[in-house]
């Protein structure tokens, strides 16, 4: 796997995504969810909310990195809050 030029942070990132997907699959198998309407303007399932949360987090990182000179950790912290808010109330 050397050709993939792994680094520890990217390995941790992909491991977190894989664990998240595995966890969501187990959660769905254990207690199947249904579509619901929260503060997002569309009906969403858990999977939809996770996707929106992750996509929003990616854009949040781009915004912080591209427009401000803040640390990337601030973007990560805001992303966690955003992901939690979307999963809980989205």
């Amino acid at each position, binding site marked *: 796997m*050397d*050709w*993939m*030029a*792994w*680094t520890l*942070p*990217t390995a941790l*990132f*992909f491991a977190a995504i894989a664990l998240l997907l595995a966890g969501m699959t187990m959660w769905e*198998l254990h207690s199947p969810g249904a579509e619901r309407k929260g503060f997002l303007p*569309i*009906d969403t399932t858990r999977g939809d909310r996770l*996707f929106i949360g992750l*996509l929003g987090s*990616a*854009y949040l*990182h*781009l915004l912080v*990195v*591209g*427009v401000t000179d803040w640390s*990337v950790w601030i973007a990560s912290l805001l992303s966690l809050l955003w992901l939690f808010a979307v999963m809980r109330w989205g």
Partner: protein
Amino acid sequence: MSKVHNNKAWWLVLPVFLLVAFSAIVPMMTVVNYSVQDIFDQSSRYFVGVDWYRQVLQDPRLHDSLLRQFIYSACVLLIEIPLGIAIALTMPTKGRWTSLCLIVMAIPLLIPWNVVGTIWQIFGRADIGLLGWSLNQLGVSYNYASNTRDAWVTVLVMDVWHWTSLVALLCYSGLRAIPDVYYQAARIDRASAWAVFRHIQLPKLKSVLLIAVMLRFMDSFMIYTEPFVLTGGGPGNATTFLSQTLTQMAVGQFDLGPAAAFSLVYFLIILLVSWLFYTAMTHDDKTR
């Protein structure tokens, strides 16, 4: 009677998943790895965090390319979608001309991108090209190699020539799927042609049009070969779109780290737009 859930069917998705993992997910993970490193070869690479992202997002060359790309895609959609609908409405629905019309419409779609670029490169030349020579003979100063406006018009007309057929054929299939009872009811109400279009044909075409808009947006947003062959991105950088900027960065300058960061930003834009279209389409299906 209770519905039987058999999740074993998901195993049938496994071959596709492996194929996608091999051809898309693993390469994309590699791009992510490259995007956080200053990398020359496997033995000399250094972790730089988000520096490449910062550099790329603050690069005026990327801003210009992105703006050009959005303007180009908007122009493509604004021209090709109405034109495709208009052509579909005027295409014959029965008789021997139908097949001929469909074949003629399909021909541009069969021509490879680089051939289309070459055709228009010669066609537009002021000295030997039929279009360029004719326009100059008519007194219209036209030279796509040196004039920005001419280059843009040529690239756009070339795209319209190549891809409007796709929109027209999609709309044609959508129009043929409308049951005749709708038209019968419209005739009883003595509805005008505009009223039939506005209240019957256009609403029934909505799903097809969403697919057409999505396909044309994605394709025009990733355009590379045709403008590269036709203008080489010029004059200056006037027709240098995102793909070409990315290629220059990755292959021309061998800046693998910034190019990887750039391609991920590019991917996120495409992903967002595709998701918006997908959501609009599935929402439309649910509300029916």
